[in-house]
Structures are given as structure tokens and as C-alpha cells.
């Protein structure tokens, strides 16, 4: 069994500015991979390329062994059902209630009865730790943490194999962020998910990620946290040996990676 997501020799260029040069990345089965990099280093462009929202200059993107660029709309849909995406601010549909947001993919792509879809949507909401009373709210009245959870429930609606998270803990308080991290971990255990998580949160990186993919100088450097901390590259060295990282490493109970 190969990698679930494989990016081969990706090149992205906007005008004269090269964002990615011969970039390669792999996400293995049941792995949580943290994608990090400085602001503006092209993490979001990379995610958008993997999701097919951005057409790269050249390179291949294989999802579960299938090159998504060569697919018809119908074939692409089958691939799209294999992944769930949680966007940075949730990207919930503001005109739909929380329940309808989660139910939408199921209504669209399954033949389930309306009653069952509603029950399943409620159940997914409970799975991500939301009260049923939140089901009838509209996204504009949710807190950031709740919106993120609803978005996660929507991403999980069709039981995907791969989960993409774009800065899931940004803007959350430490307790909510830690709870979200734990949720991701237990989801991986329960559902056998593979997770690609873009994050600036060093806690998330240390707590849940099996490996780290660092976007630096238009390339990806992959390895465990230990590898990264030992890296000679000045930028990586600074990232993983900065004051914030040292503060985290001092707390041995968090050292699970």
C-alpha cells in the first residue's frame, strides 16, 4: 500500500514568482502529517493544488494512487468523496443551519432517507463534541471553536479516508486547541484517517503529528520532529529551536512525538 497522497515534482508559478519548485510530498496511510512553513511560503497554494482548486504549472498529484489532473468530473467526484476538508475559518455555508451544513454532503451524494440523514448529521455533530442544541443555530452565531468543529463534522459526513485541515487551531484558546488536537487523534484511531494538517501551532505539531513536512525554499523537507530539531538548515533550525519551541519541549508530559 503506497502513500494516500503523493505530490510529485510540483511546480507552481505566479507571474515571475516561483512558489514551488520540484516539490515532493507524501502522506502515508493513517498518518498525521504536519505541514509547516513561514507565512507566505506557499502552504495554502500547496493545499489548493492538492485539492484541485489550483492548477499547477507542472507536476503530478496522486490521491490514493490516482492522478487527479487526468480525471473527468465524474471520476474526480469519487476522489473528492475520499477526502474531507476543514478550511481555516470553517467556511460553513452561512445560509444553512449547522445541521443542514453537515447534512448537505449526505443529501447530495447518498440515497439515505431524510430522517436517517438528519439522525446521522446529529450523530456526527456529537462525534465532534457538539451539543444537539447547536444543530439549529446559524454559523454566524457560533464561536470560532464551534465553527471549526461543525466544519470538521461536515468534512466527516461522507466518512472520508483523508482529512485536510488548514490551521485548525488558529485563534482558539489553548483549552479548545488542545481539545481539538485530541479530537483529531481519536478520530484517527477510530476511523483510520490520514490527516494533513497545516499549522502554525507548535503544540499541535508536537502533540499529534507523526511527521513534519516543512515548506522551505520552495521545497519540502520531511522528517520527524526530532529530525527537524537536528536539522542544519538555518531556517528550520530557528523554527524548531526558537524560544517558543524550547518552552514546549521543557514540558515533558507533552513530548509524545
Amino acid at each position, binding site marked *: 500500500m503506497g502513500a494516500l497522497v503523493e505530490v510529485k515534482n510540483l511546480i507552481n508559478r505566479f507571474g515571475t514568482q516561483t512558489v514551488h519548485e520540484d516539490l515532493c510530498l507524501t502522506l502515508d496511510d493513517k498518518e498525521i502529517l504536519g505541514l509547516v512553513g513561514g507565512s507566505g511560503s506557499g502552504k495554502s497554494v500547496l493545499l489548493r493544488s492538492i485539492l484541485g482548486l489550483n492548477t499547477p504549472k507542472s507536476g503530478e498529484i496522486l490521491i490514493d494512487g490516482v492522478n487527479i489532473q487526468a480525471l473527468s468530473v465524474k471520476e474526480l467526484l*469519487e476522489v473528492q468523496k475520499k477526502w474531507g476538508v476543514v478550511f481555516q475559518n470553517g467556511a460553513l455555508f*452561512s*445560509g444553512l443551519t449547522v445541521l443542514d451544513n453537515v447534512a448537505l454532503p*449526505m443529501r447530495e451524494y*447518498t*440515497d*439515505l*432517507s431524510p430522517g*436517517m440523514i438528519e*439522525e*446521522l448529521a*446529529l*450523530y*456526527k455533530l*456529537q*462525534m465532534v463534541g457538539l*451539543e*444537539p*442544541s447547536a*444543530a*439549529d443555530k*446559524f*454559523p*454566524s*452565531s457560533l464561536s470560532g471553536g464551534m465553527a471549526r468543529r461543525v466544519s470538521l463534522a461536515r468534512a*466527516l459526513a*461522507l*466518512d472520508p479516508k483523508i482529512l485536510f485541515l488548514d490551521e485548525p487551531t488558529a485563534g482558539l484558546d489553548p483549552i479548545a486547541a488542545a481539545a481539538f488536537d485530541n479530537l483529531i487523534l*481519536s*478520530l484517527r*484511531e*477510530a*476511523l483510520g484517517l490520514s490527516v494533513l494538517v497545516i499549522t502554525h501551532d507548535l503544540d499541535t505539531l508536537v502533540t499529534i503529528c507523526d511527521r513534519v513536512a516543512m515548506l522551505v525554499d520552495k521545497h519540502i523537507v520531511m522528517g520527524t520532529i526530532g529530525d527537524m530539531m537536528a536539522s542544519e538548515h538555518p531556517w528550520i533550525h530557528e523554527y524548531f529551536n526558537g524560544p517558543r519551541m524550547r518552552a514546549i519541549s521543557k514540558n515533558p508530559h507533552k513530548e509524545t512525538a
Partner: protein
Amino acid sequence: MRKRDTTGDFITITPGGPTKGIQLSGSWTINSAALIETEIADFQKSTKDSAISVDPSGIRELDTVGAWLIKKHFGHAPGIGPLIESRKNLFDFLPGKMEARTAPSKPSSIFHFFSHIGKTAIDRLNFLYAIFVFIGKIFSRLLSNFLSPRRFRFPSIVRHIYETGIQAVPIIALLGILMSMVISYQAAIQLQKFGADIFTIDLSVISILREMGVLITAIMVAGRSGSAFAAEIGVMKMREEVDALKTIGMDPIEVLVLPRVIALILVLPMLTFIADIVGLAGGSLMSLLLLDIPLHQYLDRAQTVATPTMFAVGMIKAPVFAFLISVIGTYQGMNVTGSAESVGKLTTVSVVQSIFLVIMADAAFSVIFSRAGI
């Protein structure tokens, strides 16, 4: 993918075994959940025996939907234990029991009917109150800006003059010429019957200068710019840009609303003038084509018909219409709440309300002018 598995059903009743039981097989995932759902329903209809033993060893695939179905329907059946044990992670993760959602209680329809009428009436009154408060704020800002004229946002006013005025010239001109052609054409057909061809000119000149020029321009501007005001300010409101302005100590009325109102009040008379001129040109073209009246004769006739008062009657309405359109557009924009839907809704409302108010005001003007004998 959603086709029925050829190998068999998801639930098989064990035929004539030592104990009556069922076997679960196939892939219990979201893709086959609809079929499983009907099979479970069929099965539950056929038997009332709840303690039936279940053999889940044939299940090939299981996801949260399948697990949920099993837990819901066979959770306590003998024989299910090994499955739950082998997929402990998955089953442990499922919420223990479904918490019931308290559906909002629906009042009776007669109550609903009257409460709806009441609420709508209150909403309308509130709207009326709020719009007058809004207009009051605009005027108080305007006055305080006149006391210190440097606080007028000239770059912003110029931008809105460009967007609502200069860019609207081609469409307004086209509309003006088309409108006068329509009027002349209809008038010519009717008046020719009486041999009163020449009065076609009277009719088109009067209707363009007094009514149609300004009305068509105002309706076009309401659709073009009133909606843009509502949407621009609405999106700024949604993205908390308006709140950001307030926290910097800048007044959204002064920064966002006033430039738009001022720009539109300056622009609409000019656009009306263009519509008038182009409309008269269209009228002359039509009288040449339909009635064989040469240009100099048209001009003679038009000059006797069109008095300065008539021109003024049309033009005086333009700033009033502009005020109505811009106030409604900006007010609805400021009323946007969180969702993208509300931007769309209030943009629509702003166009409908401003066109409605423009026509209302036009009717009011007609009454006033006729009473005044103008």
C-alpha cells in the same frame, strides 16, 4: 457503487440452523447505507424476536455509518460482542446514546397568522423609525462637516462620482434614446389618425423633459448604484470592517455613507440632463424617419413646447431621487448581519425599496406641481 452487492444481501436469516439467527455481510458503509436501511426495516417487520443472535463475521467493511446502524439495531444482540471488541476504537468513539433534539414547538396556524401580521407591522414601524434616525445622522454629519469642510472625504466622493456617474453615461444615453423612440413611435401611430402628426413632437418633448428622462435615469441608477452601495457596505459590515472603522474612531456615516450620498446627489442631475438631451435627439430622429419632419422644423416646434419651467420640473426631482436611492442603499448595507444570504437579501430589498420610493416621490411631485399649476 450504490448497486446492490451481487454476492447477496447485507442481512441473511440463517436457514434452519441450531439457533435462529442472522448473518451480517457485505460492506456496511455510507455508500450502501440506504440499502442496509431498507433491509433492516424489512427484517424488523418479519420478526419480532429481539433476542435473535447475530453473526457479524461476514462484514467486509465498516465505517461510522455502518457501525452506527449496528449499534442502533443490533447493539445488544447476542453474538455482536466480538465485532465490537475487534473494532473497539470505532465503537468506543461513537456517542453513547443519541440525545434527543428538542424541536422548536410550532404554534397553531391561526395564532401564527395573526402574530405574523403583528410582527410585520411592528417591523415596518421600526424600519420607518430607523430610517428617520439614519437620515438624521446623515444630516447632523453633513452639518458638522460643513463647519469643518476638510472632513469631507473628497477622494471618496470623486471615486463614487466616477463609478456611479461617468461609468453610467453610456447605458443612460442608450436608455434615453430608446425611451424617446418608443414614445415617439407610439404617439405617431395614434396622432397620425387625427392628422395631428406635429403633436408627436409635443408629446415626446414634454414626457421626456418632465417625467421619463429623470425617472428612467433614477431607476437605472437605483439598480446600478443603489445595489452596489448596499452590497459594498454590507460586505464591509459582514467582515467587521465597519466595526474596525468605529474602533479607530472614524464614523461609518461620515466615511462610508456621506460620500455616496453626496456623490449621487451631484451625479443624478447630470445623468438626467444627458438622458434629456439624448432623448430629444432620439425624438428628432424619429420624427425625421416616421413623420418626415426635418430637423429645423423639429427644433422650432420643440423650442415653443419646451419651456424652462418644464426642464426645471424634471431636473428638480433628480437630487431628491438621488437622496432616496443613496439613503436606502447605504441604510440596507449597514443593516447586514453575519451571513452572505443577508447581503443578497438586503441588496434586493434596497433596489426594490428605492425604485418604489422613487416612483412614490414622482407621484407626489406630480400632485404638487399640478396643484401649483406648473
